């Protein structure tokens, strides 16, 4: 990568933007310019001013404060779902690579089946039957990506099992657990990290879409997808209601995507 260290390097630019958003999001849980839930009847649907840079909503709530207060939710869905797929998918994938018997086969058939469902349907199905909440959205989005992680972890582990250093460890008489922890895991993480980086973008997208459909955090939460859904009836009077959370969501997604692509360029030379 000749771009290493330059500001045009996607990993650097994305990483910096993502850090700024993450800091604002964490701060936004406790501190926002105004109380994000405070109604101000006389300030309903006020256009952006210096005092309210993103305007106010139909209850007179400050949109900037709401956007800040809701930022951590999108991050939580994206990274939480990634973590769910990682924690469930990688062990299952490694198990499938090690176990050549019925267990490994069963895991792979289950992954094949889960992958044959369109991604949004699995999420819809889980969220439809039980009352929606943030935790369930994270779980539903995470489960969608578990089979992909299973396949990846298995493929990586199978490749590594053929390598000389693993054969050597075997010849030394190391046990399966030792081979797994000392030989496979340290060498398996680059492709898995790359996949995670790219998955976070899709996880945030899917989470925001589910939330937009009313299957995520519920009002008065200011999750960005939900805010955009609520803004729909005021599109011609108060476009800032949709634009503020929407543009922030886009900025977040572009930053996450850039970071993921940058990671891939750094860790996976074949995709330079």
């Amino acid at each position: 990568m000749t771009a290493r260290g330059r500001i045009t390097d996607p990993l650097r630019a994305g990483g910096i933007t993502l850090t700024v958003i993450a800091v604002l999001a964490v701060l936004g849980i406790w501190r926002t310019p105004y109380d994000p839930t405070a109604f101000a009847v006389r300030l309903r649907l006020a256009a952006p001013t210096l005092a309210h840079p993103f305007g106010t909503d139909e209850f007179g709530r400050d949109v900037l404060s709401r956007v800040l207060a809701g930022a951590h939710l999108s991050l939580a869905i994206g990274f939480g779902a990634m973590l769910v797929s990682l924690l469930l998918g990688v062990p299952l994938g490694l198990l499938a690579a090690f176990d050549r018997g019925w267990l490994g086969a069963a895991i792979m058939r289950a992954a094949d089946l889960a992958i044959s469902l369109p991604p949004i349907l699995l999420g819809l199905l889980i969220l439809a039957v039980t009352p929606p909440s943030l935790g369930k959205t994270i779980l539903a989005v995470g489960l969608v990506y578990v089979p992909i992680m299973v396949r990846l972890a298995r493929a990586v582990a199978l490749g590594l099992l053929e390598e000389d250093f693993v054969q050597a460890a075997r010849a030394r008489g190391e046990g399966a657990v030792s081979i797994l922890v000392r030989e496979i895991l340290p060498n398996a993480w680059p492709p898995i990290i790359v996949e995670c980086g790219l998955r976070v973008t899709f996880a945030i997208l899917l989470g925001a879409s589910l939330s937009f459909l009313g299957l995520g955090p519920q009002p008065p939460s200011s999750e960005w997808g939900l805010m955009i859904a609520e803004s729909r009836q005021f599109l011609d009077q108060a476009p800032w209601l949709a634009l503020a959370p929407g543009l922030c969501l886009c900025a977040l997604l572009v930053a996450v995507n850039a970071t993921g692509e940058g990671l891939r360029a750094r860790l996976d030379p074949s995709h330079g």
Partner: protein
Amino acid sequence: MGGYVVRRLLSVALVVFATSLLIFAIVHILPGNVAYAILGEYATPSAVATLQQRLGLDDPLWLQYWRWLHGVLRGDLGPSLVMDRPAGPLILEALGRSAILASIAFAIVAGGGIALGVHAATHQGRISDRVMTLAQFVFIAVPDFFWAILGVMAFAAGLDWLPATGYAPWGDGALAWASHLVLPVTVLSIGLLAHVSRLSRAAMLEALRSRYVLMARAKGMSERRVLWRHAAPNAMLPTITILAIDFGLLIGGVVVVETVFAYPGLGRLLVFAIEHRDLPLLQAGMLVLTTIYALANLAADIGYAVLNPRIRYGAAA
């Protein structure tokens, strides 16, 4: 080839059967009583009992599943509780309208994506390639529903050129019909177009770097022939896989886009079923969508086999 198709068809049947079990299990076993879900938590016990009896919810699960499966195999998808009509015709009607939306969008995504990808790969580093690379990078990251909001803001609320929502049947005239499709189709295509063109560019670049292309050029073959006879067919293989994956994303997009534009298709019907706790309708709609997705994957696999002789002759399955 025939054997391959039969094997894949059998696996589609198996997948649909297994997903029917999965859908049924999620709807019936997850916490939350179906009758309460339908009637609300303040329902009287007698109303719940009546409904449970009407729906056969007192029977053992395997019997309920068997009854459902038996109905589905005879073409009876069960009832819609909220609309008090058979779900089958409702779904079929909505599916037809969704199919119009999805097939136009998919044609744009497949045709446009491959054309843009090939153009970018053969003009690597030029202005058009760089502009496209940047646009793809940004477009992939913008959610469908936000494109939809922007589209409505600009062309319906702002310029008043297009209707913001709704659907006009063909009988209302071609112009009304088409004008209701422009925004949904555009929104549905835009993100996937970026995705497909980006990956078909990568596939094409890889093919152009290969030794068979070098060989073809070395023996003096015209560049056009090298491109369309050697590079493009090989670059199509990964692109077909991408298109199959994107078909799944397209289904997700259809659900979102139909909701935003109040377009009466299958996606909106599913969201309606969720909002109104119409679980039998939800179950039936999900099964239909999964079947379509499995068939689309089958089509992709067959397309792959047609282009790839190694699979066609059964060397690798």
